[in-house]
């Protein structure tokens, strides 16, 4: 016999931990239809016949957020065989509020009393049997973090599901209110409505969602019942909430023995005194952010002269991939030139671009998961709220923007945690302005070739500041002219600080990276092949001209003659006012939309004619044999074949060489134009993978188009200003 058991509970009640315990790796993450709320399903690892559904964490079943509507529609309409209601024993009063509403729906229920270890440590005693007696459903004490009580919990849940045990009606409301509910229920029964008891309460609570599901006539008559008992304009909703809490207070008095009376200062309170302190909060936050970036992107980890875990992992992945590429190249070596080029330059390079990112994203995500799971992220959101509010955002927008420094794709995905739609839309746009990892090589290339006599570090840092300043201005403008919803409220539970388990952080981090790799991967993969095609072919590829002219019979052409060059020539005039209206920089912009790091690769390829064999030999002659070995030449010996790759990979860009790409200076003549080019690439539409993520979060192509348009216009206007104003000074 197979059963579906749903997990319900407040946010931070340990629901996700329990879900991971129950399902192990057998879980699927998807989206609930029509909304961007994660839908998580899995099978019980001890019994494949049991399907576990993780409902979104909610405080109640009222219909005011997407999460609440999903949770209650699932319970009421899909009718799972049983619901496990997870109650955080350390804040039992508040948690039981949801419990009452779940029991009201009449679904077979088991209550899991979680965090019992912390309850005991406090000296409190919760009488599970007493609670079970009061509510008429099984109550099982558990500790989800270490798996204690979970077997018993599942045994009870299966029993309840088998027996289809509907919970009894509880004496929650006073006589007058219950009488009114009964009258309303009778009306609903007469009209043939199902779940009449539950709907009666909801209608009296002015639940718009349910009101929309019954006839006008019925709605009116229920309204009359309420008016007869309470007079017109009575706030029954408040009365219902009030009486639920009063009932819970009585239950708690009967079943819970507090070790101490009143509130005792906990460890979390003490930590909050420091971490949310009016003076210390921001400096501590700055240090935490520094550590976060040091672990992901730094090549000088904590000034120890070693690579950070992120860079280190990326290096390993890259070398494995390089080895694999060589292997594959050997396998297709005999194939025709275009097949070889497709496999090696197109597919392998495209996949390599995704794989190169995964370690950085993984490390960043694991660290962010740690900050979220331990409870600190909620404090950061609160502490920053005041600053973000000035720019028309909420403190919660910080998390997605932070992720934007790594990669726009997870950043855009993270906007779904924002409550207000306005915040979500604006943050999605702003995330694209952040200097993601793939934009850094562009800055490095330009700074080293066109800003040789300037303070290069300063130029690079100024771009970071630029992105933040532009984000602030755009947010203010969007608030003023486009999304005029007014300021949203900040209200957030600050969970207790807990040291998260390694398992939960890894699952949490991996879940997101997996989604990123698969979804973003397909976009990057397909578009890499597209760019490979556009930059290696032209019309002559298909009429035999290329094949006849080339030595090896290849139908491919040089990039200078390719479709890509034609595209570049068409759009180049658009960039004239920005100072870089030539086809090669224009092609750079276009390939940047596929993946930002492509800009550098494109430049290296397009200005390749400058880098002749003679030039390379001369260039590398300045290095000693040890240095050559360090740069990647085998045994420290100069090798003409390897020189090209090594040169374009980094020597040129890190060291700085104004004569490296002489033609680049013909196309981008002034420093103002060079800076405008960097700014344009920083701010314009992010890569297609990120646009795909934006579409998922904004739901429609229309909204996505609007967001991309804002990014494009911003990039153009700002780059224009840089070129014109900068031209006066630089």
């Amino acid at each position, binding site marked *: 016999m197979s059963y579906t058991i749903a997990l319900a509970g407040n946010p931070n009640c340990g629901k996700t931990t329990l879900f991971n315990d129950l399902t192990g790796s057998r879980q699927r993450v998807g989206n609930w239809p029509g909304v961007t709320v994660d839908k998580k399903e899995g099978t019980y690892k001890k019994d494949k016949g049991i399907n576990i559904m993780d409902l979104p964490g909610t*405080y*109640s079943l*009222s219909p*005011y957020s997407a999460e609440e509507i999903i949770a209650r529609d699932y319970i009421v309409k899909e009718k799972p065989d049983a619901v496990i209601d997870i109650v955080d024993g*350390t*804040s*039992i*009063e*508040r948690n039981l*509020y949801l419990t009452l509403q779940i029991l009201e729906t009449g679904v077979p229920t088991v209550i899991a009393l979680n965090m019992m270890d912390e309850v005991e440590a406090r000296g409190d005693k919760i009488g599970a049997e007493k609670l079970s007696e009061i509510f008429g459903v099984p109550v099982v004490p558990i500790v989800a973090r270490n798996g204690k009580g979970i077997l018993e919990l599942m045994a009870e849940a299966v029993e309840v599901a088998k027996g289809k045990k509907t919970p009894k009606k509880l004496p929650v409301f006073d006589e007058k209110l219950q009488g009114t509910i009964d009258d309303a229920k009778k009306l609903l029964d007469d009209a043939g409505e199902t779940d009449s008891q539950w709907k009666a309460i909801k209608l009296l609570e002015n639940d718009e969602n349910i009101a929309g599901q019954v006839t006008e006539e019925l709605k009116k008559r229920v309204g009359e019942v309420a008016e007869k008992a309470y007079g017109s304009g009575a706030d029954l*909703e*408040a009365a219902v*909430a*009030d009486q639920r*809490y009063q009932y819970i207070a009585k239950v708690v008095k009967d079943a819970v023995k507090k070790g101490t009376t009143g*509130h005792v200062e906990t460890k*979390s*309170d003490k930590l*909050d*005194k420091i971490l*949310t*302190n*009016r003076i210390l*909060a921001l400096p501590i936050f700055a240090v935490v952010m520094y550590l976060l970036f040091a672990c992901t992107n730094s090549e000088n980890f904590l000034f120890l002269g070693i690579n950070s875990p992120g860079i280190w992992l990326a290096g390993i992945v890259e070398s494995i991939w390089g080895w694999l590429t060589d292997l594959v190249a050997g396998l297709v070596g005999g194939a025709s030139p275009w097949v070889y080029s497709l496999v090696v330059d197109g597919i392998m390079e495209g996949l390599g671009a995704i794989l190169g990112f995964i370690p950085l994203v993984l490390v960043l995500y694991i660290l962010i998961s740690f900050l979220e799971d331990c409870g600190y992220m*909620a404090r950061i959101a*609160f*502490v*920053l*709220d*005041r600053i973000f*509010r000035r720019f028309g955002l909420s*403190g919660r927008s910080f998390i997605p923007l932070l992720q934007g420094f790594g990669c726009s794709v997870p950043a855009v995905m993270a906007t779904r945690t924002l409550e207000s739609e306005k915040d979500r839309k604006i943050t999605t746009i702003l995330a694209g302005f952040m200097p993601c990892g793939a934009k850094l090589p562009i800055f490095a290339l330009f700074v080293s070739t066109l800003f040789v006599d300037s303070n290069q570090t300063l130029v690079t840092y100024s771009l970071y500041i630029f992105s933040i300043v532009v984000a602030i201005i755009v947010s203010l403008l969007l608030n003023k002219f486009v999304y005029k919803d007014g*300021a949203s*409220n*900040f*209200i*957030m*539970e*600050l*969970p*207790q600080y807990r040291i998260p388990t390694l398992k939960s952080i890894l699952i949490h981090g991996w879940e997101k990276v997996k989604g990123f790799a698969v979804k973003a991967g397909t976009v990057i993969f397909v578009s890499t092949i597209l760019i490979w095609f556009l930059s290696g072919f032209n019309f002559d590829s298909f009429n035999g001209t290329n094949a006849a002219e080339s030595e090896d019979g290849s139908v491919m052409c040089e990039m200078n003659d390719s479709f890509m060059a034609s595209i570049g020539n068409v759009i180049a005039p658009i960039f004239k006012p920005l100072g870089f209206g030539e086809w090669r920089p224009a092609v750079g912009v276009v390939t940047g939309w596929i993946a930002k790091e492509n800009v550098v690769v494109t430049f290296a390829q397009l200005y390749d004619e400058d880098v002749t064999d003679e030039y390379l030999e001369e260039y590398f002659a300045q290095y000693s044999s040890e240095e050559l070995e360090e740069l990647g030449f085998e045994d420290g010996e100069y090798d003409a074949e390897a020189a090209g790759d090594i040169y374009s990979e980094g020597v040129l860009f890190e060291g700085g060489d104004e004569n490296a790409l002489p033609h680049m200076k013909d196309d981008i003549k002034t420093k103002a134009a060079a800076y405008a080019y960097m700014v344009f690439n920083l701010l314009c539409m992010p890569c297609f993978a990120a646009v795909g993520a934006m579409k998922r979060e904004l739901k429609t192509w229309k909204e996505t188009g609007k967001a991309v348009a804002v990014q494009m216009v911003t990039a153009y206007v700002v780059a224009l200003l840089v070129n014109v104003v900068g031209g006066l000074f630089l």
Partner: protein
Amino acid sequence: MALAMMEVGETREIKEFHGKEEVKRHLQDLGFVKGERVQVIGENPSGMILLVKGVRIALNRGLASRIMVV
């Protein structure tokens, strides 16, 4: 008086809320109901940290000034 005027350490009872129905409902779900005792346990430029039904809730000042306490 408004909740926003309370000092750290002070405990008072909630009287009413002035504002949108939607926000009111959310506050109710978090335990902000008439007669409930709230304690201010922290304060910073962003707003206040309150203890409601044994749970820490952070609120911005604008919202706290629309919750009336006695």
